[in-house]
């Protein structure tokens, strides 16, 4: 389905991706994990054709990618909407269906039903008629997922959907996406800082650090040897009570444990070596 | 040598109008250039434009009551500035509501100008309010204008550092214990004086050139604020002198020998300076990239 081959990307004289390589099959639920600035968003943009790789290539269905491929759905990391945007949630979702096409949309039954179904699949029907600018971060997140789903993509790229959500809602969204992957045979690539809320659902992990990647089953990737090789210095992966904790990774000294807990960050970033 | 001689002894220097024009444009230019850097940083050029539009309403009213137009500019400008400050948020290009409420003043200005033409039976008022007339300005205003400009520069110098912090991140400034409200108020005062001084020199419609042009060029070239302010002031003075000189010379120019408007000349020079600054910045980045490549 998706084949990323040895991708190198420069952004403003900096090598952000230096040989990223992995594959995703239809129906797989894959986590893209890595510290801040590892290049996760850049990788998604490369898959979408918004960033051209300097070296290597990306294939979707064995064909080189092109911008605007309707088979790929995208939920970006940050959205900004003015509080008084004159648009209902429903209209926002409908843009994902045919927002690219020229002309004024005609109100058609089939169109309305598809939007309704997408809204239903993310349980957003209760606020479908509210103005989008007034929704909470989590509510807007669901609408964004619905907007991506309504185009019926076969590959869904989701950038950090969990950072806006409380623990219960995070689990809820993960369950939802997991179910979508199962029921529709849709491949999902989900970006996250913290692996733990995803552990039970993931089929596969792509770990990104220092511009390079390590891909495979969770228990293959999340070991001390493979991550140490990736980082280029020794880190330790520990498993305690069903959680995975990486000790010795970057940006660890920045966050004291209690502040990290307070901010809802995973233990993984909080633990001091 | 001969040209220099002709230049020094040109009647240009012996005309009191020319000297007034030079004083007015230079002082308005310098104060606008300095304040303008902060306006660019704060993204407030729409607010600046609004201030002078409202000032124009005041100027039109002042003609109606035969008062010096500078008082009209300044009083209405202060009113508009106070209004924007009271709304409590920065007026940016996005800001529809503020723009709308203040466009009411433009409507009022239309009415005043209309009544002006009725009263005076000439339409020159429209031209002088909207496009300025440095050569025929009332000489009594010149000292006032220079005085307020100097005072404004002093105010900006006094609040320079807190203002900088407030302009970059107001919340952070508040957390650091800077009286954000006061700094904002003082800056608004400086902003109004700069905008209205340059409105008097350039006319209400073209004053934005002085307010934005040199500052935008300065910010593009320099990476440090101090340098940006210096370059900006220098560019403003250059444009002012060159503009007045050309306007003086243009009485012999084709097609009509009626003289080219001074504010038009200054505005165009400023625009060229801005484009030149952009090119300089790009050129330097290019050089730097080449240099960087060679090192690695």
């Amino acid at each position: 389905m998706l084949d990323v081959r040895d991708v190198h990307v420069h952004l403003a004289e900096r090598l952000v991706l230096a040989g990223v390589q992995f594959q995703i099959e239809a129906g797989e639920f894959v986590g893209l994990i890595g510290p801040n600035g590892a290049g996760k968003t850049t990788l998604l943009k490369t898959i979408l054709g918004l960033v051209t790789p300097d070296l290597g290539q990306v294939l979707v269905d064995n064909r080189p990618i092109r911008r605007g491929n309707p088979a790929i759905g995208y939920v970006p990391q940050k959205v900004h909407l003015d509080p008084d945007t004159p648009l209902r949630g429903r209209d926002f979702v409908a843009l994902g269906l045919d927002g690219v096409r020229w002309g004024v949309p005609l109100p058609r039954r089939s169109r309305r039903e598809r939007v309704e179904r997408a809204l239903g699949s993310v349980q957003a029907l209760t606020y479908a008629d509210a103005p989008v600018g007034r929704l909470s971060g989590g509510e807007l997140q669901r609408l964004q997922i619905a907007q991506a789903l309504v185009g019926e993509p076969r590959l869904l790229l989701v950038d950090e959907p969990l950072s806006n959500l409380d623990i219960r809602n995070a689990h809820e969204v993960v369950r939802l996406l997991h179910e979508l992957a199962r029921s529709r045979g849709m491949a999902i690539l989900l970006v996250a800082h913290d692996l733990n809320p995803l552990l039970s659902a993931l089929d596969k992990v792509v770990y990104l650090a220092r511009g390079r990647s390590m891909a495979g089953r969770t228990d293959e990737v999340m070991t001390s040897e493979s991550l140490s090789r990736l980082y280029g210095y020794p880190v330790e992966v520990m498993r305690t009570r069903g959680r995975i904790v990486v000790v010795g990774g970057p940006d660890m000294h920045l966050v004291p444990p209690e502040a990290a807990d307070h901010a809802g960050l995973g233990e993984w970033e909080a633990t001091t070596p | 040598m001969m040209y220099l001689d002709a230049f020094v002894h040109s009647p240009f220097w012996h005309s009191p109008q020319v000297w007034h024009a030079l004083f007015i444009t230079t002082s308005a230019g310098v104060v606008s250039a300095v304040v303008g850097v902060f306006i660019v940083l704060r993204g407030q050029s729409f607010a600046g434009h609004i201030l002078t539009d409202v000032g124009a309403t005041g100027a039109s009213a002042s003609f109606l009551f035969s008062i010096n137009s500078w008082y009209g500019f300044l009083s209405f400008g202060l009113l508009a500035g106070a209004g924007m400050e009271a709304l409590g948020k920065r007026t940016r290009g996005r800001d529809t509501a503020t723009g709308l409420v203040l466009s009411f003043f433009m409507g009022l200005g239309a009415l005043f100008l209309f009544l002006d033409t009725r009263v005076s039976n000439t339409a020159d008022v429209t031209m002088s309010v909207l496009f300025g007339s440095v050569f025929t300005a009332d000489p009594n205003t010149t000292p006032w204008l220079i005085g307020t400009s100097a005072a404004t520069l002093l105010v900006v110098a006094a609040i320079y550092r807190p203002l900088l912090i407030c302009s970059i991140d107001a919340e952070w400034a508040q957390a650091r214990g800077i009286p954000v409200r006061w700094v904002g108020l003082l800056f608004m005062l400086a902003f109004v004086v700069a905008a209205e001084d340059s409105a008097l020199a350039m006319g209400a419609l073209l004053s934005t050139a002085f307010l934005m042009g040199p500052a935008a060029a300065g910010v593009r070239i320099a990476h440090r604020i101090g340098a940006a302010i210096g370059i900006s002031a220098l560019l403003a003075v250059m444009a002012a002198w060159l503009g007045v000189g050309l306007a003086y010379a243009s009485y012999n120019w084709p097609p009509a020998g009626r003289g080219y408007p001074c504010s038009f000349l200054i505005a165009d020079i400023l625009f060229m300076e801005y484009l030149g600054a952009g090119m300089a910045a790009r050129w330097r980045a290019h050089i730097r990239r080449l240099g960087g490549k060679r090192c690695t």
Partner: protein
Amino acid sequence: MHMMGVLDTLHLWLLPSGLLTTLYMWHAYVCGTIVALTATLVGYFVVLRGVAFMAHSLPKIGFAGVAGATVLQVPPLVGLLTFNLLGGLVMSTLSRRGRRDVVTALTLVLALGAGELFLTLGQAYGETAYALLFGQIVGISGPQVGQTLAVGLVTTGLWMILYRPLLFVTVARDQALARGVRERLLDNLFAILVGLVCVMTVPVVGALLGFSLLIGPVATASLVTRRGVHTLLLAGALGLAAIWLALLLAYDSGWPVGFFATTIIVLEYKVVYIGRWVKTRRALAI
């Protein structure tokens, strides 16, 4: 008897003699209607995209165009089209490099300076400048009505074509880009759209006040409704009411139409704003 007097006065005031029999008033009403409706359509995106400053600047740029046309003795429409479309394109092109508000301001003063030069060269001081800046209703000719109608139709057509992708790229830029929306093309076409509206507003309400017609009704409408269609309908109605009443008052008083149009639009906004404020107050009190 007394009643009759009041009615007569009212009649005289609402339907002053000559209002419906004067040809230029008919022209003004037709043009005003077209202008108000198209301004609403485009204003919707102006408010949504937050480009009030651009909408404020383009009509003023159109003024320079007319002044230039007078000097070169070509039809004003040519000057308006050239300056507005060029101005819009320059703004949208340059603002990809520099800061948008700075670029808008500088493009504006460049065009205004040219306008001033044209006025000086053409010796078209005073009256002409005044009419261009603040609008006049006496001078609208039959062919001008035809021109306004034609430009209005083109604008509406372009608006309808752009509607969906423009909305998409405005409210969800990243998704739209990922789906293949061409942002640069849309930016330029949108600038042309605003330019076209200004081509229509400048001759009727004047360069300085076309801005309020563009954003006022939409800003007012979006205070009360958050649905695109409702916003458009309400804004259209508000804009029409404002321009019709302004034309009537201008005819009655001989004062500039732009003054009345702006005042009415701002009043509409204020009334709705205060009304909404009172309503939320009540709701809180209960």
